[in-house]
């Protein structure tokens, strides 16, 4: 750690990991409800568990992104953070708001929550991933703006690198596109159409800028390859990502009432979306192969390479599998979508946040890298979680293919629930893979507490 103010990243990282654990616990509950339908009913109905599962994911990734920015920006700009105090205040505001929201989901009926939080003034709730009550949504905007103010002011007074510019652009985009969550027209088609301005333009747009910037930062640090080389490839990769991803939004507009030309525009451009992810994988491996130093933090290097591969598999390959309109006609809204969603989020965003945590946390704790023992444990957790996720994806894909076949393609289509019963075996296997994932996550937690000979900070 070169700048004192980078230390504010630590609580963000800790909160991120804590909420990650919560997310997985609710994921396991939902997975079990898929096969034991009345599990925890009526205490935690599926929709509540799902809301907690997905909202925790978003919130902990945001914690991760913010922590990453607080760690990265001072080092890139070569100056202290504009206001570490503001960063700490925002941390508590965001954490308390997030916790209150989740408690509200769990202990107040959703309709009551909506009424109590002013949903009648401006109805924004009850849409997938945007279930947050109005005060929470406003809180997210306030926190995001104050955060961006802090980061932007830091950038203004310091060195402007490509990595920090791209990161900042991604973070600003994140805040700006979130504003569409306040637009909820009565017209369902328009509601859905602009809803994707938040969801798609986040995960297949501006978040990719954040992802690429974080990955580039860690690669510079652990490989010692020239900044110049890494930064120009960063630009090329994010160019490809946005060129394909922006029009690629069209792959969500096939069947929601939008004009039918989106089937062409969406298919063509989203078919090209794997290219930037492939480029990212090649890039990551290339840089590590050309490394000029052996960084003592082997675990961080592993996470960085894993991000490239898993993002390509999850977002690239599994996205491509069902992105073409004639295929999507049958797979839209089935377990295929769930399979893609799980691996893409894990491979791209979960892993990049863990990459930066893995790299930065030892430094924040005053050492270049964790002890050999701790790193071995962390690498075990990498393989456990990653392989478990591969199997979760494979089982969901199998379930999805069978579901599509029985319910959509067949001449005598089964009803939804009948088809679900047929694929129950795959749901069971997915749940077991989920348990392995959870074990991997616990292993990851444990790796923070393993003592041993720590590597001193490189002089």
């Amino acid at each position: 750690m070169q700048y004192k103010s980078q230390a504010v990243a630590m609580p963000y990282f800790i909160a991120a990991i804590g909420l990650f654990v919560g997310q997985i616990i609710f994921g396991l509950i939902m997975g079990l409800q898929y096969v034991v339908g009345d599990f925890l009913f009526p205490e935690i109905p599926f929709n509540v568990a799902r809301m907690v599962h997905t909202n925790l994911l978003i919130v902990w990734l945001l914690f991760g992104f913010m922590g990453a920015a607080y760690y990265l920006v001072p080092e890139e700009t070569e100056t202290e953070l504009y206001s570490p105090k503001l960063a700490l205040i925002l941390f508590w505001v965001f954490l308390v708001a997030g916790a209150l929201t989740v408690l509200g989901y769990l202990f107040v009926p959703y309709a009551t929550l909506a009424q109590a939080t002013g949903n009648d003034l401006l109805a924004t709730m009850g849409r997938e991933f945007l279930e947050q009550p109005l005060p929470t949504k406003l809180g997210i905007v306030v926190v995001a703006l104050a955060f961006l103010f802090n980061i932007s002011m830091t950038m203004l007074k310091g060195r402007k690198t490509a990595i920090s510019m791209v990161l900042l652009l991604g973070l600003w985009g994140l805040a700006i596109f979130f504003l569409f969550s306040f637009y909820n027209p009565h017209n369902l088609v328009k509601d859905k159409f602009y809803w994707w301005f938040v969801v798609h333009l986040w995960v297949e747009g501006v978040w990719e800028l954040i992802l690429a910037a974080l990955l580039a930062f860690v690669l510079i640090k652990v490989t010692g390859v020239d900044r110049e080389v890494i930064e120009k490839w960063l630009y090329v990769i994010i160019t490809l990502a946005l060129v394909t991803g922006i029009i690629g939004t069209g792959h969500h507009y096939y069947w929601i009432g939008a004009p039918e030309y989106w089937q062409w525009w969406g298919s063509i451009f989203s078919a090209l979306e794997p290219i930037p992810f492939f480029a990212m994988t090649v890039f990551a491996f290339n840089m590590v192969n050309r490394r000029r130093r052996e960084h003592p933090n082997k675990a961080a290097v592993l996470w960085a390479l894993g991000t490239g591969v898993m993002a390509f598999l999850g977002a690239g390959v599994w996205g491509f599998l069902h992105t073409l309109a004639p295929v999507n006609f049958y797979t839209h809204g089935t377990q295929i979508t769930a399979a893609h969603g799980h691996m893409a989020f894990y491979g791209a965003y979960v892993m990049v946040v863990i990459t930066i945590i893995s790299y930065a946390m030892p430094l924040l704790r005053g050492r270049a890298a964790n002890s050999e023992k701790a790193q071995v444990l962390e690498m075990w957790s990498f393989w456990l979680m990653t392989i478990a996720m591969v199997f979760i994806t494979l089982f969901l894909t199998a379930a999805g293919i069978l579901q599509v076949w029985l319910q959509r393609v067949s001449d005598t289509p089964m009803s939804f629930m009948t088809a679900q019963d047929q694929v129950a075996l795959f749901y069971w296997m997915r749940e077991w893979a989920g348990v392995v994932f959870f074990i991997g996550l616990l292993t990851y937690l444990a790796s923070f507490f393993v003592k041993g000979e720590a590597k001193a900070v490189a002089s």
Partner: protein
Amino acid sequence: MSGIFSKAMARNIFYGGTVFFFLLFLALVYDTERELPTRDNRQNLSAEVIAGKKIWETRNCIGCHSLLGEGAYFAPELGNVYPRRGPEFIKAWMQSQPTGAPGRRQMPNFHLSDEELDNLVAFLKYSSEINTANWPPNIEG
């Protein structure tokens, strides 16, 4: 040396390409807005439908069901539940929840009034009349 690869050029292409494709996207969005009235069934957006949409949202139906294929995949697609089941079935179904059948997926009872049930059904009817390019492939959704 087979050519030049400069960071400044890569940066310019990034900004230029992004603006270019975003403008292209906006052009398509503009055309979509012009075309939507012929497809989105807005002429049937009655007060009941609007009230029904709000009930749909405030009961977080999307947390289990999908609507036009979007949402959760835990419970049936409801974009075409109106033609699949009809209004009376839908209302009776809502009132008889939860089934309590052991081991089966459970749907909460939302204790909706008759008027609220009618509104919700109106919303589902409106949704089913949106031109979705013939999706879903069959009535089972």
